[in-house]
Each structure stands twice: as C-alpha cells, then as structure tokens.
C-alpha cells in the first residue's frame, strides 16, 4: 500500500502548493505499530507525515466541522464509509462544498489494531502492508504476519456497502469490488428473535457498563449540535450520575437522535472503551428504515433526504 501512500502525499502536496487548500486532514503513523492517528498538514513539506493502509480506521469527516468557520479550504482523506459522512454533513448544512476538497481512497478493509498488536512483538516497527484480497500481510522489523480479513478486520468492515468513496474530488488508486464476509443485519435479526425480557436483560448488561465518557457521541459525524442535551446543565435532562436508568436514557436518546442520519460508519463501536455494541442500536433503526421505507443508507448518495425528514403518501402508518 506504499504506492497509495505516495499518491496521497503527492495529491496533498499539490493542493497545498497550489494554495487550493490551507490544510490537509489525513492519517499519520500512530505511536503503536498497528495504529494511525489523525494528522493536520498545513505545508507542502509536511505531507511526508501522511500514510495509508489497513490501520486507518478513524472517520476524519467530523473534523470538517471544526474548520467550518476557519478561513481557507480544507482537504480531507476519506474511505468509502467516511465519504457518506461528508455527504451527510453537506446535506445537514454543517459544511459548505466549496470549502472542502475530498481525497477519496478505495478501502480494502481496516484491521482491529489490538488484535494485530496481540500477535506482533511489542517492539516491532512497521515496514509495509500489502492487500492480498482476503488477507493483509503486515511486514514488520521482526517478521511478516498474515491477517485474514474475516478474523482480524473491524467488525463493521465485514459488511461494507461502499469500499469506494461516494463523493471525491480526487480518487487515489483503483476502485475495489464490494466484498462481504457476513450478512448485514444478521446480528440484529438474532436480537429480534429474543423475547422482551431477554432483550431487556441483554441491553441492561451492556448499558450498565457505560462510563458515560461520550466518546461514541463525540466521534459521531452526525452528532453536530452546538449544545448537546447531555451537556446541558439547566435543565439537566440527564444527570451525570451513572446508573442503569440514566445510562439507558443516554444510549436510547443518542441512537434515536441520529436515526435517519446515521451513516453506519461504525465509529461508535470502535471507540467505546467498554465494548458496548452501540452500533447494533443504530443497525436496528437502519433495518427498520429499510423494511418500512426502503431507505438507502444515509449519505450513500448526494441529495438524499433523511427518512425522518421526508414524507410520502405511500409511507406505511400501521400504528395510526
């Protein structure tokens, strides 16, 4: 994937040199072998910090909101799933199209860094990563490792609707075929089979672990309220007290607030320090929206209205 890294750097350099943008937001090598970290490049000399590979899990699109009122334009490196966020941010009027330059990179999947770290020597350094179709080869200073995608990819990557960015001013590398390693709603369907009490017990167990760190909210590219209801002091709709009741209110409210806008990038799942399967809540909503309104995944096309922001006479309304 060194070739793609080189092309991203060249593209970023060109944009900065030609003053098309003042800032490029992309992925840089992190402090762990199998991690990258967001980098903010503001000069052509800085582009060597950019990298690409199977450790670029972060969805960087949310950072665009930080720069919406800053002077100058911003370029951003996105994967397919992240590009859906860009479209949603545009549709939500959070950012303006003429201020951003989208560098899209077709994505062959992202590995779960901790699973990789468990198998690589702690003092190893990363040399190169190679995509071999159903696996990645991670070449390190202490040897090469092969990671099957099915077993080592982030859970969200097992089903990928858009390996190729759905919006891009520049596309780096070749487009990739859609390849799935699981059924999209298999886990939700499994949960749907449970009885009411079993479902409740399942989620009680998950929510009771919640630390209320709000990483899931903060990382979410469609959570863009300037003052979030959970930060509001007067009135205090939800208190800082952690218990099952307050935690449940938080999770259910969060899930429903992004209903119809959630782009299913899976970042909430990735960042949860307590491994709460937060994305499942939104996947249930995605499934219902698909079943009831045949809604495409939000952000997957430009100009889509959100399912809850659109009314059609043919909409089902069995509960009325």
């Amino acid at each position, binding site marked *: 994937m060194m070739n793609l890294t080189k092309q991203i750097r060249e593209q970023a350099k060109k944009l900065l040199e030609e003053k098309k943008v003042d800032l490029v937001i992309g992925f840089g090598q992190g*402090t762990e072998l199998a991690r990258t970290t*967001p*980098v903010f490049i503001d000069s052509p000399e800085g582009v060597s910090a950019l990298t690409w590979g199977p450790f670029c899990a972060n969805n960087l699109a949310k950072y665009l909101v930080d720069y919406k009122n800053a002077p100058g334009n911003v370029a951003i490196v996105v994967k397919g799933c992240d590009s859906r966020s860009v479209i949603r941010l545009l549709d939500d009027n959070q950012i303006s199209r003429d201020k951003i330059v989208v560098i899209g990179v077709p994505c062959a999947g992202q590995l779960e860094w901790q699973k990789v*770290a468990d198998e690589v020597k702690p003092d190893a350094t990363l040399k190169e990563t190679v995509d071999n179709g159903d696996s990645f080869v991670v070449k390190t200073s202490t040897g090469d490792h092969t990671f099957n995608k099915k077993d080592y990819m982030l859970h969200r990557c097992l089903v990928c609707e858009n390996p190729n960015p759905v919006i891009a001013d520049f596309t780096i590398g070749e487009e990739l075929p859609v390849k799935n390693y699981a059924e999209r709603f298999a886990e939700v369907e499994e949960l749907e089979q449970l009885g009411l009490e079993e479902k409740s017990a399942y989620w009680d167990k998950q929510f009771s672990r919640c630390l209320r*760190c709000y990483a899931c909210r*903060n990382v979410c590219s469609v959570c863009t309220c300037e003052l979030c209801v959970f930060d509001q*002091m007067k009135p205090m709709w939800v208190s*800082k*007290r952690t*218990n099952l009741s307050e935690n449940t209110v938080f999770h259910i409210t969060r899930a429903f607030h992004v209903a119809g806008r959630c782009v299913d990038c899976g970042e909430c799942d990735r960042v949860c320090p307590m491994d709460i399967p937060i994305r499942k809540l939104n996947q249930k909503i995605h499934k219902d929206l698909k079943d009831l309104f045949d809604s495409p995944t939000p952000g997957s096309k430009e100009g889509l209205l959100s399912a809850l922001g659109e009314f059609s006479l043919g909409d089902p309304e069995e509960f009325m």
Partner: protein
Amino acid sequence: MKAKIVNKGQLSGLLDKLAKDYDLVAPVKEETITLFKKISSAQDAFLDYTNSDVSPKGCFLPQSEKIFSYTYTGDSLEIVKPESAKKTVLFGARPCDIKAITTLDPVFEGEKFGDEFYSSKRENTVIIGLSCSKVLSTCFCYAFGGGPCDGTGSDLLFTEIGDKYYVEINTDKGQALVDANSQFFSSESTDQLAKDKEELAKKLAGEFVKKVDLTGVKELLDSDFELAYWDEDPYKKCIGCGTCTYVCPTCHCFDIFDFTTGDITGDRIRCWDSCMYPEYTLMAGGHNPRPTRKERIRNRFMHKLKYHLDRYNMVGCVGCGRCIRKCPVNIDITKIINDLKEVAQNA
C-alpha cells in the same frame, strides 16, 4: 521483609473465605472487558489479565456515590447518611493501579481537606496486589519509579511463580489478614521464591517498549504556561470525550449535585467529572476559562506532569497506559512527554 507462600490449589479456598468475611472486590471478565467488581465466590475472579479496562480506583472513589439522602417534609429537613464503609478486600490489583491509589491519598486524606467518604473506605480496605506477568506495548510504569512487581501501596503482594504465589507482607494490615487466614498460607521457606521473584522483576523490566524521558519537562511547564506546543497537533485531534480521564487510575475530579424527585426527596450525589468536558469549568455567569480543547488538553497534561507534583510531590501518572490504548485518536502521553522534552532541549 516477611513473606509467605500460597499454593495455587489453596487460592480459591482463600478467596471464598475472604468473600465470606469481607466485601471481596476482584477483577472479573464481562464479555471482552475486565473490570473490578464485588464477587461472592472465587470462581468469579478473573486473574489471567494483563491490565483491566477500568482501574480499581472506584473502590475508593466510586463513579457515582451517594453522600446523603434528604426528605423535606414542609417544616423540617431530614438527612440520612449512607452506611459506613464495609470491611473490604481489594484482590488482584496491578502494581500501577495500587501506586495510583497512593497518588489519590494526599488529595482526599490531606490535613486541610479530609474526605470522610474516601478515607473510611481506604481505612476499611485491605489491598492485595498481583504482580504482572507480562508487559504490554503501552506500559511505562518504570518511568515513574514503579515496576511490574512493585509492592508500593499494597498490604500484601502476590507474585505468581510456577504453581505457587509468593506473598510479600508489606503492612500490619496485611499481616493481620494472613494471621486470620493462616490455614491457606504455607510456612515453607520462601528463599527460593524470593530469588525467583527478583529474576522475574528483572526480566519484565527489560521488556518495556515505550521510552519515556522526563528530563526538563517539569521545568519547562513551570516556566511557560503558554507554550506554543499546545497550539500543535494534540488538541486538533482530540475529540473531547472523557475516555482518558475515566479509565485513568489517578484522575479524581468529581462533581456534586442533588438528584431531586418532585416531592423534595432525593440524594446528594458525587460523581466523576472530566476536565475534557466543556462544562467542567463553565461558570455560572457563562464564562469559561477553558473555552476550547486546547486549554483542556493543556490542563490534563499539566495536571499529570506539573500540578500534582507541585501539590503533593508525586507525578500524577503511573504509566498504566490505559489512556494510550483507549484514546479514539491515539493521543499518547508518552509522545507528549517526549515532545515536551525536545521542546525543553531546544529552548
């Protein structure tokens, strides 16, 4: 130093006995997460872990804690205090997390601002540590004088060696627990295990990957509050969640508020707060002295590397590495320390 041996076959008997005599708090595994919880039998304990996802600081500073309940009846206000702390054993905590508790002690047990909720739990708890058997790529306890087999702060320290635990008795509290449960502690010679433990400590000390150099960092932070460094990368990538502060074993900020139901009955609650949150420093009049993530990030690292030292002569970090592992955007305190060292050198 006094020491004993517990044969592995005896451990579950000991834990079951402790669970009967005390509230026993030990690491447990819930799906993929390791955390500390009260257990009722030895089989619930999960000891084959490297570092728990959440530290055991909640034993002394719970994430949410009732300070008192109140009822207003129209002409009088009735206050009910919670029950006093129960006799507790914290079993299986790692050396870094126990050292972290010693950094909380001066905050809550200082002469000026003693905190009865903390100190009653602290007094009533026996801490039994468990030496590490593995060093993670994110570990750096050595940088602050700790170590994978360091007994600082523990009443007893268990170190797993073959089919035995070598048990160091570090305090009178620890000795009393051993005396009261002597049937589980073998009185065979501990000389060989003492040597084995030293070997293990030496071996593990050589396995740290994170290189941390604090040279000049404190002096730099002392000299300049407005360092240009804080305008750089870290705050730009920070997403402002509270993960680092909530998984941190030394972070101890809290908020206090009343949780009232309609008829003026309720609880006064103390709960963890995070300096990463915008409302943390929000004043009643609307002014916020730390208005952006830049000031908040600066505060967090200043607290770890300067303020705690200024106040208590202890670094506010023990090198457990949780914040590195859990940060969604890979903000790494060891990188920040090393960056600051560079800044200091080039100044």
